[in-house]
């Protein structure tokens, strides 16, 4: 029986294409002598043949179109830049809004510009950049606000960067969704401030 167990291992190694010629001889000798293992071996081969005979199936009709339709629309900041270039009036209107609600806006700005992030024991922080060090695994979602994140290790969850940048080391890994929010807003805000500065020069 111990002999049969050893041969079961040989059978599987054979099926994986990893048997030396010496081992092949051993297996063959045992199969010739043992009816039980012969049966076992032929059942294994039959099983594989059955699985391989599964006919190949195709993706449903319209699959590619549905994927393309679900993709995030083109890079938002590119879109906003192009749109603003075509609509200078928008900048003027936005400027008017800022002047009207100046105090409101600056308050809001103060409130939202502080650097914040989800705390984990194994992350490092270097002025406004959260670092997931190599070899470290974050178990959960990660949100960074008004700062950047550099991923050298692994995040087992979603990563959201609000008004910041995400750098991914080649070894870095994120198992969930990655989202960068408000790059477009950041850019717009910058542009509006710039325009205002020029106007008041």
């Amino acid at each position, binding site marked *: 029986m111990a002999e049969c167990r050893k041969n079961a291992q040989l059978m599987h190694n054979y099926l994986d294409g990893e048997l030396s010629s010496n081992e092949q001889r051993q297996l063959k000798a045992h199969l010739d002598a043992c009816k039980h293992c012969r049966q076992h071996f032929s059942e294994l081969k039959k*099983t594989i043949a059955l699985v391989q005979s599964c006919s190949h*199936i195709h993706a449903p009709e319209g*699959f590619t179109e549905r994927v393309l339709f679900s993709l*995030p629309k083109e890079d938002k900041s590119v879109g906003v830049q192009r749109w603003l270039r075509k609509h200078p009036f928008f900048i003027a209107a936005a400027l008017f809004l800022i002047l009207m609600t100046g105090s409101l806006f600056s308050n809001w700005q103060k409130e939202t510009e502080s650097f914040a992030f989800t705390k984990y024991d194994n992350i490092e922080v270097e002025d406004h950049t959260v670092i997931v060090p190599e070899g470290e695994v974050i178990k959960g979602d990660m949100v960074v606000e008004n700062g950047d994140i550099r991923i050298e290790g692994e995040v087992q969850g979603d990563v959201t960067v609000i008004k910041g940048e995400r750098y991914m080391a080649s070894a870095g890994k994120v198992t969930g*969704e990655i989202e960068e929010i408000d790059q477009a807003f950041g850019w717009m805000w910058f542009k509006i401030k710039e325009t205002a500065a020029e106007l008041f020069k």
Partner: protein
Amino acid sequence: MELLVQRRIKQVLKGDQNAFGEIVELYKDKVYQICYRMLWNQHEAEDAAQETFIKAFINIHTYDTTKKFTTWLYRIATNLCIDRIRKKKPDYHLDAEVAGTEGLNMYSQLASSEKLPEEALESLEMQETVQAAIYQLPEKYRSVIVLKYIEELSLQEIAEILELPLGTVKTRMHRGREALRKHLRNM
């Protein structure tokens, strides 16, 4: 093939969604097939396959162009399927039944509407039985069996897709084959 794909990926990185469409066209059948064999439900398989490509598009900058593209793509697909399987674990049996019914419906529909010849019917029935046997495997055996015998990938490639040591893949392959044998030996 890989060269063409690398060129398309460069275009995708520049934001060209049409170039991504070509990548989807090239691999949709393979990815859908993995998902279908893992989940045994057409609707769920399409969902998972769609999600695979969307995720690939969003994370394309994390793909290391010195590695094989399909390894990276299939990793996304198998991870998504395994996640789905784990999430629905509690009603595993219920799902197996539902999935089985779906298969049966397809089978009976085909059988009644087209009056298939005996042989084709038998082969359809056999396919259902084989798929059912694959489906009852625990997910860690199911993934290696599907990648090896349906997608015809090497053990080394499977190890890279699943990010497992080669030895672990071999062990799972052995156990998966034994579990399948118990279900299929009397066919």
